[in-house]
């Protein structure tokens, strides 16, 4: 399993626990629209806290928008870029 697909799966499990989705997060494809799956702005904050804890990153406020949380891939891109920034710092 590649690093990226491991990230995707971790995000999927966090979504299952904290996303309050109307579908089982395990069944979601990487690019499925999370808002269509029932992600609310309220749940987004809990999701963010869980992501920060799992990946050891701090998501800057300017990234806390609908685009960031639109899909598993979108979240993974943000997490990876924050991890990358930390590694090169």
């Amino acid at each position: 399993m590649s690093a990226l697909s491991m990230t995707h799966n971790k995000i999927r499990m966090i979504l299952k626990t904290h996303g309050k989705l109307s579908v089982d997060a395990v069944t979601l494809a990487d690019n499925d629209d999370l808002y269509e799956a029932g992600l609310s702005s309220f749940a987004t904050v809990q999701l963010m806290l869980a992501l920060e804890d799992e990946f050891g990153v701090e998501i800057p406020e300017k990234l806390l928008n609908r685009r960031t949380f639109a899909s598993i891939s979108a979240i993974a891109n943000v997490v990876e870029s924050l991890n990358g920034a930390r590694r090169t710092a």
Partner: protein
Amino acid sequence: MALASESRLSVVERARYVATEIAAKNAAQVDREGRFPHEVVAALKQERLLSVMLPGEFGGENATLEQVAGACSILAHHCASSAMIFAMHQIKLSSLISHGQASPWHRAFMQRIAREQLLLASATTEGGIGGDLRNSICAVKVNGTQFDLEKDATVISYGAYADAILATAKRHPDAPSSDQVLAAVIKDQYRLEKTTDWDTLGMRGTCSDGFKLIAHAPAEQILPKPFAEIAAQSMLATSHLLWCSVWFGIAGDAVSRAQAYVRAEARKKPGTTPPGALRLAEAVAMIQSMRANILANLRRFAGADEDELMSLGFAVAMNNLKVDVSQTAVQVINHALLICGIHGYKNNTPFSVGRHLRDAHSAALMISNDRILSNSANLLLAHRYDLGLID
């Protein structure tokens, strides 16, 4: 009757004309009978005030939200129900302006609103959901080019008197409750079956009865943007800003009555400061901070780009504005009541503030302050509030 619009008066001047010449004369009856302020809405239409915020290309006057807020507060000096009806119409219109310009149907609809001065109402609350407007049980059922919608709307303010309704619903019957759209339906496309009566403490003229809304209309009337974005980018902010302007106007009229009372007392006993003067000073200090809060947030909204509108900080600021102004308005009017004493408590004196107090008590409830504070509490787990004094 003078047609103020013919003399090219400003939005605020025309609102003042409607407020003092029409609304003031009927406000007590509107309140007592809990009836729709027909004559005020007719005057608003005659003065073309229902379309002022539309861009010129649609027949509007490009009025800013700040100008509309000014009009709301002036109307509220004389009739809070009329002011709230005007505010709620403008909130719906702002959603169309912000999110309807890419859709040919909504562009034509906006032209029609200006031409015919259509009054827009809102169906966002629903049985089983209550005031949580970001969830729906009902759904639009699209069938080819048409859609059907049946909504148990527990409140549609002035629903029976509106020319069109903007209703929230799930995107499709199997969509999650938070995946909503906003659909516009025009009077000949829907039927309203009244379910509950609006017999309330205050804001009685808004006639916010409950209805079952049954609509059938072309699918192109569903706004293309998700309602989540419409709510965040235009509706929540304009709601809080214009509602607060109404509450500010109610409180302002109570203060002006209290001030008149204190001055009359002072004239009776020259050389002494009447006992109510100190409390009046407190009320004026409170209303000053209400005004500063509203204006600062109107200007923040006017200068905000799409990212700012969607930011946590902006949502927290609008929540704070609503909670603070709704609470302070009641405190200010309560001060006015204490100042005016029995003359304030009695109806039909120049110092009566009973209606003001009853109307203002709606402020904490229309989207419950507790719900708003819970929302802020959640947002503040993520948002780092800017504690700097200047930008």
